């Protein structure tokens, strides 16, 4: 049955992706929910919640707020919070209830902007899509709002879009990626903040490290002519150390598509016989090869491993449960959006 999952826990939803992309940027993030979604986002999908004091709040929606559509009350709450926090911008994040009751986010944005005088981003996530879709909307809206000034291009400046702990399973991923990039890297949302986003037009190039960064990169290309390319310049040493032993093997990599495809290149360089990529998440056509698979149901990874005749599967160990008949080698490649597990905790 569609949507039925028995072995795999549900992956991080789009509202978590929104928060993850914007978490470090200093905005006031208001999740339009009763507290449950915020609890999930902060308690399960945001590993920086304990250590970084980002202003992420629940709007504390109650049944009568939803039934009567008390937008004015919501705006009052946000304005009151903003008077304390004094954030440079405000984000309203959608969840299932606003999606069902058709909350008018545009009106909320106008009302809130008028009363607070700061930019308001409204990301209409629904809680029924995956994290990458929410992060994609958030990045696009962020750059659309703040990267507006055309600056002279700095030949050393490299933008990195799409890095979140949900994708890279480390709270230090921004630093690692930055160190791996040649030039002055700005890893947006993981080390580089709002001021650097405003200066995005100065980048010589933008690197897109996950599918959620594509829409924003295309926007910057259209607006400033900044070229972009897909690249994942960093993998943990532990994972890279396992690759040389895979010479001559047929390898299935399950992860977000850009990380899996970048790992494919490294595997081919290590003389793997062939490599297929499988993903439950967003994909970019240009990376897609004939043997690659987009997964919909939890039986799909096992079917892909069988069809590809894989000797090795590289994936979050969470997927081991659904690779029932797979008898080959399994190599763990944590994906926080899947298992909620960091490399640091491995």
């Amino acid at each position: 049955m569609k949507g039925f999952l028995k072995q795999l826990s549900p992956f991080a939803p789009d509202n978590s992706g929104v928060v993850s992309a914007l978490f470090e940027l200093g905005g006031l993030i208001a999740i339009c929910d009763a507290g449950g979604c915020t609890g999930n986002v902060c308690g399960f999908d945001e590993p920086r919640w304990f250590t970084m004091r980002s202003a992420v709040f629940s709007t504390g929606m109650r049944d009568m707020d939803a039934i009567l559509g008390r937008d004015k009350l919501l705006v009052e709450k946000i304005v009151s919070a903003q008077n304390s926090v004094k954030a440079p911008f405000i984000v309203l994040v959608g969840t299932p209830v606003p999606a069902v009751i058709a909350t008018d986010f545009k009106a909320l944005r106008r009302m809130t902007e008028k009363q607070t005088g700061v930019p308001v981003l409204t990301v209409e996530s629904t809680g029924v899509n995956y994290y990458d879709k929410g992060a994609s909307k958030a990045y696009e809206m962020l750059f659309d709002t703040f990267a507006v000034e055309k600056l002279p291009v700095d030949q050393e400046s490299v933008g990195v879009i799409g890095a979140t702990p949900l994708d890279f399973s480390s709270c230090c991923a921004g630093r690692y990626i930055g160190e791996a990039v040649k030039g002055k890297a700005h890893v947006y949302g993981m080390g580089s903040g709002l001021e650097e986003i405003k200066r995005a037009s100065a980048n010589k190039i933008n690197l897109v490290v996950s599918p959620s960064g594509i829409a924003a990169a295309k926007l910057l290309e259209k607006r400033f002519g900044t070229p972009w390319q897909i690249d994942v310049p960093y993998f943990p040493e532990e994972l890279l150390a396992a690759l040389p032993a895979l010479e001559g093997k047929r390898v299935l990599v399950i992860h977000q598509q850009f990380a899996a495809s970048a790992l494919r290149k490294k595997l081919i360089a290590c003389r793997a016989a062939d490599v297929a990529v499988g993903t439950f998440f967003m994909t970019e056509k240009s990376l897609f090869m004939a043997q690659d698979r987009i997964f919909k149901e939890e039986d799909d990874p096992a079917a892909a491993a069988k069809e590809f005749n894989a000797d090795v599967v590289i994936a979050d160990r969470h997927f081991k449960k659904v690779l029932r008949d797979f008898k080959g080698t399994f190599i763990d490649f944590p994906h926080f959006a899947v298992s909620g597990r960091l490399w640091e905790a491995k």
Partner: protein
Amino acid sequence: MEQITIPIKEASFPQPFPGGLEFNAPARGMWNIVHTGMLLPEAHQIFVCARGCLRGVILTAAEMNAMDRMSWVGIEENDFFDSSMEENVIEGVTDILNKLSGKPPVVLVFVSCVQLFAGIDFPECLRELSKRFPHTTFVDCYMNPTMRKSGLTPDQLMRRQLFVPLKNTAPLEKNAINLLGSDFAADRSCELFTWLDENKIICREITKCSSFSAYQEMGKSSLNMTWIPQAVAAAESLENRLGQKHLHLPISYGEEEIENNYKLLAQALDLNVPDFSEARQSAGQALAHALKIIGNTPIALDYTAAPRILSLTRRLLEAGFNVTQVFADLFIPGDRKDFEFLQKNFPSLKITPTLHVNMRFANNGHLDEKILAVGQKAAFFTGSVNFVDLVWGRGFYGHSGVAAIAGLMIEAFRNPKDIESVITHKGWGCESCL
């Protein structure tokens, strides 16, 4: 950014602070509906919800190594609008049950706020499922946090639904009572249980039931005792349905109220009022001993530590402890007497919210002096590594409960803990694979 703190003399009851955007402190010891549902032995939980809602509940089950008792159906955007909500529940649950190797005696079926807003006919879903699986009891359950402030809260509902499968199969047993509503097994060293044992009264509680048949025995008890107001709806429902009498004996840390509770129970059970002077003295001595060690150290408590936080605060203050701060957003009706007492006798006691946006930037981790925190949120907000890891009273009751808490205070005062590793463990007392 300063904390929003007011002296209790200026606080209004029951809500000292205005509502607004809400901060969710990373203290995870309090139980949620998944933990509570797992108390029902052999029950299988099935959540039919949006992914955003599922993520937390399923990872909760995963953390407690209970994935074999949990399944789910993820609903998609169009499911809200294409008249398939009931079908998703019926066919999803059917599919799951057909794939399970054995049929559970009870299935807790959860839907969430969105389906209820969209008008799902949940009773019809359960009627159809009962037809398809006549040997299974289906219980309607709700993950509906939008109802936190009207009608029965999700917590009250869950505690009520937990006892829906109880049936009246035999005459009620006069010498058997139930304790309803506690997340944790009651501390049986309490004088209450010694007294019940002496009078050959059996006290059943779901936390002690290792099988569904043991749980069903609770249907034979003649009286339901509740310790927390969140369990009252469960007991009232059972009184109506099974004829089991209900007696609410709220957890208290005050000598007089504790003994008054015992008197009420003695009356209900037609027993002589017991003499608990020894237990009362022991509690007093335990507090005096703790005071000698802790001295004038400031103490901060939070509402997650105990169901009656103001009762505990009052007892500690009356015993001479330097309680300076209580973290709480809302008080329950049962707190009123203690609230008024504290306003009159300890007017400078500080009340601090936990949900207020400013609390995101509370000065945790920068202590000017040693503080003893009681409760996980008090530990988080004060940044004190000397904290009592007390969640929702831990099953302590009566005089012995007071003595036990005094002992925990001494232990916490002497031995610092790592705040992050302790308070981020979800569901205090539950198994955790993390």
